[in-house]
């Protein structure tokens, strides 16, 4: 199989920039969410549509990012 309909975009999640990568493989859409700086993977999901895959990935990323505390310097 070859991946199709590849796309990347950046979204803001509560002040954190998140990078979404989505592509179709067969009948499934795969989406990964990672934080832009430094680029660590936050979520990897598959769903029947692009919208569903990105929504699930963002939901998981939001949950994880809510645990990160910013400290006063």
């Amino acid at each position, binding site marked *: 199989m070859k991946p199709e309909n590849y796309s990347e975009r950046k979204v803001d999640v509560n002040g954190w920039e998140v990078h979404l990568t989505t592509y179709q493989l067969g009948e499934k859409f795969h989406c990964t969410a990672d*934080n832009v700086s430094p*680029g*660590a993977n936050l979520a990897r999901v598959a769903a029947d549509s692009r919208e569903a895959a990105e929504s699930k990935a963002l939901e998981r990323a939001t949950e994880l990012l809510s*645990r990160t505390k910013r*400290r006063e*310097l």
Partner: protein
Amino acid sequence: MADYSNPEMLVTTEWVAQHANDPKVRVVEVDVDTKAYEEGHPPGAIAWAWNSQLCDTVIRDILPKRQFEELMDQSGIGKDTTVILYGDNNNWFAAWALWQMKIYGHKDARIMNGGRKKWISEGRELSTENKAPSPTSAYKASEADLSLRAFLPQVQSAAKDGRTVMIDVRSPAEFSGEILAPPGLPETCQRGGHIPGAHSVPWGKACNDDGTFKSYDELRQLYGAEGISSGTPVIAYCRIGERSSHTWFVLKYLLGIGNVQNYDGSWTEWGNLVGAPVERGAVAAAKA
């Protein structure tokens, strides 16, 4: 890629596609997200899990020599095999694997430029077949070349000697101490900040948007601005040593810096060390 000091250390996605059935070549995926391989991978590629197959799972250390030899045997890799490493996150753990292969003296290990991201974005074939390679036997690794690796005492000395350039490749917010781990990941240190005197050059500065490495001239300018030239001793660190192995690869092989070490103890060691000096802030100095 021709301008790099060691252009042979990189191959293109096209090269990998053309060598899918080459018995002298073994393609290995090493991801941060160890589930990525199962989703689909270049035909013929095998996978190594960084957190179970590329480290000692009892004490904190790289893979012991005997286990490294066993991994090579299980992977069908002989001393003369060309090993192509690639992975997600612009080849973070692929560089980590290559660093260990070089420590144990494997001659021909290379990186697929652009990694998993570029392969997928180009719409190349993905296989879900997970066929174990025919094992080889009696791989003999060299004694560990520890000139490629920095341990805590060396880093402590280097922080004082004023000659070694210490490169912190984490994000600016980690460097400053605003956050203790990459956003969304568990905090794994007691203190935030950086090793006194370290220069902030986030690893991603070495990459283009498509995941490939920047040109020789761009890299030379990037690291030259931090006072790094061919004879400069350099120690790179991050949080656990994988992002810094990426920068180690860039400095050593793409720019040809002779004396570069990866401090894999990194911030999870320094930031937990009782009494270790820590510098905080300096956000303005950190390159966003």
